[in-house]
């Protein structure tokens, strides 16, 4: 019995001694503690998580991973939304309103100073064809679309400021809803007409050697005499190229916006809006001038597109080179009938 007790006591002593040895690290001879209780290198990975400010320095917008298939929802934060707000609410109304009002004021001033541009010689009564049926139909189709597009577009910018207080929220919302449909629907015949017009008139609107003189003399405003011009003078060429270039910008940005996020992300879509609105502001101002000169600004101009024929005197004064060509062509054709004369060109 005492031997067993002795063995028990010895085991107990050994165990207590072993426990004492492993318990404290404060004794100099103790073994190195296991790695899990060792003090770490000081880097706590959870403390080093990314912060919002840090991410903004690295990326323009914050995105992550999500569990839903709508990839737009992976966006966490895009501060560019505030820039969009600035453009849409502060910059654009001034840009668009400023350009249009400035153009109207400029035209009014021009009309007061110069008055309606009349032909100096009286009408000859002889009509020559200026635009054929295809040209006129395309122009008027595109023009109708442009008017609707411009008005519905202006409603997006100024509607809630100008129209909403007049007709109240329900009527304004219904009107805006239908103007939105009109805008997206009329865009397609506009784009079609734009392409046809560009194809029909591109050759006639290429710059030639008479354009610089025409521009310098501002069409005869500064010199007092009519500078020569072909079928389209330099002023008309400016209109044509404005319509083509800004029209293409509008079409491209418009199609991008018609199919949102099909090709671009949120920042790209915002830029599509900026381009579309800016091009629209410029083009509306240009077209206001175009409408002015084609109706009130110049006598005899409306007939060109409205009826397709212009008076020969008008043609000789404003488009002298083109009138010469047309006269030669007509005379040449009648010459073929039998009598001698200047040959067709």
């Amino acid at each position: 019995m005492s031997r067993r007790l002795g063995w028990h006591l010895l085991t107990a002593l050994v165990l207590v001694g072993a426990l004492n040895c492993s318990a404290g690290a404060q004794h100099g001879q103790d073994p190195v503690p296991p790695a899990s209780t060792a003090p770490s290198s000081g880097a706590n990975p959870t403390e080093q998580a990314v912060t919002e400010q840090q991410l903004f320095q690295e990326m323009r917008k914050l995105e992550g991973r999500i569990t839903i298939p709508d990839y737009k929802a992976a966006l966490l934060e895009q501060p560019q939304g505030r820039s969009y707000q600035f453009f849409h609410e502060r910059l654009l109304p001034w840009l668009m309103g400023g350009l249009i009002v400035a153009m109207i004021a400029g035209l009014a001033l021009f009309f007061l100073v110069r008055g309606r541009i009349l032909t100096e010689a009286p009408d000859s009564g002889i009509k020559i064809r200026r635009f054929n049926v295809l040209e006129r139909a395309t122009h008027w189709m595109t023009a109708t679309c442009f008017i609707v597009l411009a008005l519905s577009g202006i409603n997006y910018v100024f509607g809630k400021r100008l129209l909403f207080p007049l007709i109240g929220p329900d009527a304004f919302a219904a009107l805006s809803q239908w103007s939105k449909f009109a805008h997206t629907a009329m865009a397609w015949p506009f784009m079609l007409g734009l392409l046809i017009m560009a194809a029909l008139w591109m050759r006639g609107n290429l710059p030639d050697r008479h354009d610089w003189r025409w521009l310098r003399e501002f069409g005869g405003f500064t010199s007092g005499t009519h500078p020569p011009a072909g079928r389209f003078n330099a002023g008309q060429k400016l209109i044509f190229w404005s319509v083509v270039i800004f029209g293409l910008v509008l079409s491209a940005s418009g199609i991008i916006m018609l199919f949102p996020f099909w090709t671009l992300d949120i920042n790209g879509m915002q830029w599509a809006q900026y381009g579309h609105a800016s091009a629209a502001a410029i083009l509306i101002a240009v077209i206001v001038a175009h409408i002015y000169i084609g109706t009130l600004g110049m006598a005899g101009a409306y007939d060109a597109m409205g009826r397709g024929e212009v008076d020969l005197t008008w043609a000789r004064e404003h488009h002298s080179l083109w009138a010469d060509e047309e006269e030669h062509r007509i005379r040449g054709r009648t010459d073929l009938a039998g009598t001698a004369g200047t040959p067709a060109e």
Partner: protein
Amino acid sequence: MPVILASIALAVVLAIVSGLGLFSMQRPVYQSQPMQSVRVGDPGHNLVGPNWSGNPSQPQNSERALNATSREPG
């Protein structure tokens, strides 16, 4: 004048046609953003029985309901 009126009419007709075309192209978001996992609205491919209409208040066929409980829900 007839040319102008015809052009306006043509613009309106083309606009209506393109508007209808665009409208028919449109899809609800749950169709245009497809996901590979199960869809409750697809009859026959889901896990709650082929007659599931998506409307939880409609009474189910009780036998099918009993059979359905033996399977793991999605």
